[in-house]
Every structure is written in C-alpha cells, then in structure tokens.
C-alpha cells in the first residue's frame, strides 16, 4: 500500500499573507496527505531544516511580497546543501509569468498562481509522487 505523501507548506520571508497557504494545506490534508505548516516569517534556513526534520517529500513555498526570486532559489540551494535533492519544490503566491521560467531553472518545478484549483495542486503532487522513487520507500 502506498504511504501518505508528506508535504511541508512554508511561508518564507516577511510576508504575512497566509490565506492561500492555509487553504492549500487544508486541501492537501483532505486529499489524504500529511501536511506540516511552518507558520509565518520563516527564513530559507528554517524551511530547509524543517523539511529535513520532518522528512517531507514535497516543499510548497508561498510568497505574495515579490521576494520570490531571492527566497525560493535559496530554499532549493539549502535543500541541496543538506543532501536533499529529490524533494519536489513547488511555489505559489503573486509570481509574474516572466519569473516562472527562471524559478524552474532554479529548481521550483511548478508555480500555482492565483486561481489555481487546489484539486490541480493535489493531482500534480500525487502524480509526481507515483512516478518518483520516494513512493517505494
């Protein structure tokens, strides 16, 4: 039997808008995943540490303040430095279309902008998990 996907939902930086992060966290939990929510005002270091401590499969990052180009890649960098390079990193918030490609290069696999249905996010994560090596662990 497949184990539950473990997801860390995180708010990097000083941005205090947590409505979206909480809605996604609730939706993923209702979709049968284990969800840990970091709370607000997390540094990239705190997020990477939590991801390792909680042994998550997925890290979801939410920023609405415009600081994503600095903070998202930093989280990915720190995960790699901790020897974790097979987690799925996804993002959401207010992220211009023009930045999505750059973020992909920096290791953010998908960005779910405003209006993204939570069902789409859950399906994406589930599909990734099925085809990843983590599912068999």
């Amino acid at each position, binding site marked *: 039997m497949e184990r539950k996907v473990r997801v860390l939902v995180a708010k990097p*930086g*000083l*941005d*205090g*808008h*947590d*409505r979206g*992060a*909480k*809605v996604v*966290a*609730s*939706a993923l939990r209702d979709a049968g995943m284990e969800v840990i*929510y*970091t*709370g*607000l*005002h997390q*540094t990239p270091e705190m997020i990477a540490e939590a991801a390792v401590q909680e042994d998550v499969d997925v890290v979801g990052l939410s920023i*609405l*303040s*415009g*600081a994503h*180009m*600095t*903070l998202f890649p930093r989280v990915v960098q720190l995960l790699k430095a901790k020897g974790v390079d097979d987690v799925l990193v996804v993002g959401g918030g*207010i992220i*211009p*279309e023009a930045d999505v490609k750059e973020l992909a290069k920096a290791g953010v696999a998908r960005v779910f*902008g*405003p*209006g993204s*249905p*939570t*069902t789409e996010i859950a399906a994406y994560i589930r599909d990734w998990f099925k085809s990843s090596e983590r599912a068999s662990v």
Partner: protein
Amino acid sequence: MDVYEKIREAEKKWRERCKPAATQRDALFETISGDPVKDLYTPCDIEGLDYGRDLGFPGEYPFTRGVRNNMYRGRLWTMRQFSGFGTAMDTNQRYHFLLDRGQTGLSVAFHLPTIMGYDSDHPRSIGEVGRCGVAIDSLEDMQVLFDKIPLDKVSTSMTINAPASILLAFYICVGEKQGVSSDRISGTIQNDILKEYIAQKSWIFPPEPSMRIITDIMGFCADHVPKWNTISISGYHIREAGSTAAQELAFTLADGFAYVEAGIKAGLDVDRFAPRLSYFFNAHLDFFEEIAKYRAARRIWAREMKEKYGAKKPESWLLRFHTQTAGCSLTAQQPENNIVRTAYEALSAVLGGTQSLHTNSMDETLALPSEKAVQIALRTQQIIACETGVANTIDPLAGSYFVEALTNRLEKEAYDYFERIESMGGVVKAIDRGFFQKEISDAAYAYQKKIEQGKAVVVGVNEYVIEDEKIEIPILKIDPEVERIQVERVKALRARRDNDLVKRRLEVLKNAAGGSDNLMPPIVEAARAYATLGEMVDVLKGVFGEYKERPIF
C-alpha cells in the same frame, strides 16, 4: 387584521398564484458570505423598524444613515489611494502624480522590512526592499517621501502597525521641518495591533506591551496631535484573510471595544480619545451585504459607546471609516475585469457612507499598480462622485425592505459573536485560543470549496475562462537596484549622523520602555536624531520581547 398580516396573506396568495419558486434558476441564492437571500422582501421583513430609534437623521444618534448631517452634499469622501514602492524618491513621484490626477489625501504603503521593524540592510530584508511598499528606514527617507508636499494642507494615512509610533514620530518631525507644528498636521496611523494577530500578521511585540504603546499614542495625540486618528480599527484584512461579512463586522468592532477598554483602563477619559478612533472596512463584491454592513457598524458603535462605555460627546459615538475595495475579489485572469469589480465595490462603499475610499487597480493581482491602472482606479471614484448622481442624497437605500432587513441581520450576527468573545474572556484571550484565526481560515476554506465545486462563480476563473490568455497590460517592475541604493543610503546615514546623540536617545527610550512613561516623546527625540526604525525597534524588542504565533490551519 393589521397591515402586516394583510401583506403576509397577500404574499401567500401571490406565491400560490404565480409559483415563482417553480421556475427558479439552479444557482446559489446566498450572499457571498453564505447567508440565504429570499427572492422577495416586503414590509413584513422590517416589521417593528422604528425610524427614530433605528435609523434617525444623518449626523445624529444612532448615525445609521451617516455620520455627517449633510454627508456628501457637504463634502465628498476623501479619495485616498494606498501607494508606495521602491525608494522614497520613487514614491514621492507617484504621490505627486496621484495628487495631480485629483486624489485628495495621501496613503502610505511601506515595504515589509519597515512593517516588520527591520532596516533595509538587515539580513531579513534581503530580497524584500522596496518590493511591496516604500523603503523607509529613517527620518531622512521620510523627508524625501514628502518632498514638496505641504503637511498643513494634505492629510496622510499610514498603513503601519507594530512600529506605528515610530512612523508617526517621523511624520511629526517632517512637519516640524516644514514649519508645521504637530497640532496642525492631520492624518491616521493604522496602529491596530489586535487585527495583526488575527489577520494581517505583521506583529513584532506581544499583545500587552503593544496595547501599552497604543494607549501611549492615544494620550500623546490627545495632547499634542489633536487632528490625528490614532487607530484605524480594521476589518479590511480580516475580510481579505477570508472571513464573512458578519465576522468582519463583529471582529472589527470587538477590537474597537477592546481599545476603548484599554484606553479607559490606562486612565484616559473616553471622550478625550474616542473621537479620534476611526475604522477601516472592506468593500467586497456582494453589493447590498456591504452597504448593510456599514450601516449596522455605525448603529452598533453608537449604541455601545453611549450605553456601555458612557461616552458623553456625540463625536465619541460616531463611527468614521475608510474603505478599500476587496483585493481578494480580483483575478489574475482577464485583469481588465477587475476595473468592473472595483467599480461596483466602490459604489457600495459610497452608498454605505464611507468617509474615505481607496479603489484597487486592475493589475494588483499581478504587481503593484502601474500609473495607467491607478489612474483608472481614481477615475472610478471621480465618475461615481460626479456622474452617477448617488452623492446627491444621503443614505439613499434607507427604507429598502431588503437593505434594512440585511442591516438588522448583520447587527444580530455581530452581537452573537460579541457574546461568544465575552464568554472566552475577551478579545486578547480569544486571540490566544486562536478563535478568530480558526473562524477565518474555516470561512476561507469553505469559500474555496464552493468555487472549486462550481457553486460560486468567479468570472474568468471557473467560468468564462479563456485558455492561453495573454496579459496585455503594462506591469510595474521593481528595479533590483533599489535594494542596493537603499542599503547604501542607510549605511551612509549611520556614518554621517551624531552617533553619540543617537546612543543617548536610544538609552532614554530603553528606560522609558522599562517604566511607565509615555513612549512617544523619547521616540520623537530619537527620530529627530536620525536613529533608524530598526534601531528603535531593537531597543523595544529588548524590553518587550517578540510575539510567536501558534500556526493553525
């Protein structure tokens, strides 16, 4: 049979005759908050409404119809667009643009480091400088922000909470440098810390010292800055976080009453500080629900201030408010549609009797407003004011069976919430338990589910969708150089100023924080010496500690 029984009988017969329910569309007939809406309202829905007791005349208790006796016939609402980005210079330019286009008041949006009490060169500010507001680290930046803006002629609202005392001090000092004494400046600081723990989440210190700072500001302004609104008790953010209209109304007023109690407990005469408390509500998309909400708010505040808190001055009973159209109602898809949403929301705020209004720009789901977009937002207000005729008469919807019924219903829902909050021991205890936060996140999740199930329609998002649409409007970009420029500025300031003086002023501030003296005078003194915001916040953090939330979802 009395007149109401006659109407009830007649309605019954009408329904039997026409069967309006039989051919009803398959749709959700609810307000956006989830309250059911009937197909028809009649005098029976407001049976018992007493004009004198429940509505009254404008400018008189209970102020349901408006806080001024001639409302917009005397003076239009202030057109006050929330604005700020990049450096103080960038924002000063935007302020001149807005004033030039007919805005009648200023409203400052600070960047996150300022909001959270960090200078631009703090490690936590990396990537954040100038991105969602203007970078203000010191009085020097503030002077640039208001360059060529006469503070005796223009009023300014500053959206700042935890460090509001410091920004107020900066503003007072800018006034001084212009030769405008503090008794002649007018404006508002948001300074509503309770809703930070509940919704906006830009806190620094724990609740108790934060309330002390607020009562210090109330006392200081009563004596020295009499034309200043010391708090903008806010529902906007509570609504943006996902609450219903009733929750927005109830939680905001509950916060307001908590401030009144704090002021009284601190030994201030209620009639000295209450007239300078103001409010800030959201204007969401459900047109009539919003109008009813504003009217209910005025009536509830008037009654409680008079009956419960014993305020004697009518100025203490009247609820003055600013409104912002709902950011959370806007879409990233087909952004031009947001012009339409904002227009309807603005109209409801005007029909609800707002004193001041900000209209969102169409591109705010994508970036900060471009010049073109904010001009349209401003023109939206000007068209309402000058072309629609709605400002010709006061509270035009009074007497509407639907609107009065909604006003009554929202009022009752608010009182139900007041009782629950009381039973928890008040607002601060309820915050500790996560009561408001859970109500809000539950409401947000319920609404999201409604959208995903197709029960609530969002045009362009779950209906009338355009696949592969191209965004064809100009998008404002923040120059990454802004961070480097601002970091250099604040470092240069620290090198240039009299650092011994700053050190002494910060020491005085530290001692005041540890005692019970009013904090405003030492903050103003430190500001004058060009102590930075981050330095002053660090001193206060050292004494008061930092707030830590318990994240729940």
